[in-house]
C-alpha cells in the first residue's frame, strides 16, 4: 500500500515533486509574510514606547492603535 502511494505507478517523482513544490511555496510565503508582520508590529511597539505621555495618550485614543498593541502580546 505504502509502496503504491510512493511509486504512483511510476509517476511518483512527478506527482510528489509537484505537491512538494506547492507546499514549500505555501510555507515560504506564509513564513515570510509572518516575518514582515511581526517586524512591523515590533517597530510599532518601539515607536509607541518612545512617545511622551501626551502623545501616547493621543495615539491610544485611536481604536486601531489599541488593537495593534493588544494583538502584539498574542504573537
Amino acid at each position, binding site marked *: 500500500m505504502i509502496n503504491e*502511494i510512493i511509486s*504512483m*505507478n*511510476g*509517476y*511518483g517523482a*512527478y*506527482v510528489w*515533486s*509537484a*505537491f512538494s*513544490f*506547492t507546499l514549500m*511555496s*505555501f510555507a515560504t*510565503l*506564509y513564513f515570510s*509574510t*509572518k516575518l*514582515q*508582520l511581526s517586524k*512591523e*508590529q515590533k*517597530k*510599532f511597539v518601539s*515607536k*509607541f514606547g518612545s*512617545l511622551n505621555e501626551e*502623545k501616547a495618550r*493621543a*495615539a491610544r485614543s*485611536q*481604536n*486601531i*492603535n489599541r*488593537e*495593534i498593541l493588544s*494583538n502584539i502580546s498574542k504573537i
Partner: protein
Amino acid sequence: MKLSFFNIYNLRMFKYFEPNKIFAITSRAPKYVLFIFIVVLTIGLTEALILSPEDYKQSDAVRIMYVHVPAAWISLGIFSSLALLSVGSFIFKNKNFALISKSLAPSGFIFNIIALVTGSIWGKPTWGTWWAWDARITSMLILALFYGMYLLAWRIYEDKEQVVKITSMIAILGVINVPIIKYSVDWWNTLHQLPSINVLSNNSIHESMLIPLGIMTAAFALFSLLIFLMKYNTELIKVKNKGLDRL
C-alpha cells in the same frame, strides 16, 4: 461642499469597510483561517493523493491536476480582482482599494508560479516535454510577468499617488490577458487540453475527481485569504507607524 454621486455613494457604501473599523476583525481572523485551512488541506491531500482514482489514460500523473488547476484558477481570480479594485480605486478614490490590491497580489503571484511549475512537471509525462510555447502556457507566463511588474512597482515607487496609478494601469492592462488565457485552448490549436469543467454545460470530469478538486480549490482559496489578511494587517500597521512618526 458639493458632493458628486460617486462621492455620496462612496461615503455610504464604504464607511463600514474603513481600515480602522475592520482591523478588529482582520487582526483576529488569521488564526481561525489558518486552522480551517489546515483541516481542509489535510482532507484535500488525502483525497487527492490516496482516495481519488487514477485516470484511465494518464494513470496517477493525473493527481498533479489537484494542485495545478486550483492554483491556475485562483491566480486568475486574484488578478481579475486586482483589475476590478483598480477600476474601483479610480472611480471612488478609495485608498483602501489600493491597500486590498497590494495585499492580494503576493498570493496571486505565488499561485501563478505554482500553476506554471506544476504544469511543467505534468507536461513531461503527458506531452513528453517540460515546456512548450503553447498559447495557454505562454499566456500564463505573461500573467506572471504582469504580477511581477505589479509587485515591483509597489517596491520601486515611493510616491503613494504615483504608485497607485501605475499599479492600477498594470492591473487594468494585464486583465486583457485573462480572457485570452481562458479561451486560448478554444481559439488556438494547443497542446493543452480543453476545459473539463464548464459551469454552463455538463462536466467531462467524474465526481470522484471533481470532489477532491473542489476541496483542494477551497484549501487554496483559504490560503490566499490567510495571506491576504496577514499582508493587509502588515500594511495597516505600516500606515500607523508613519502616523506615529507624525505625532
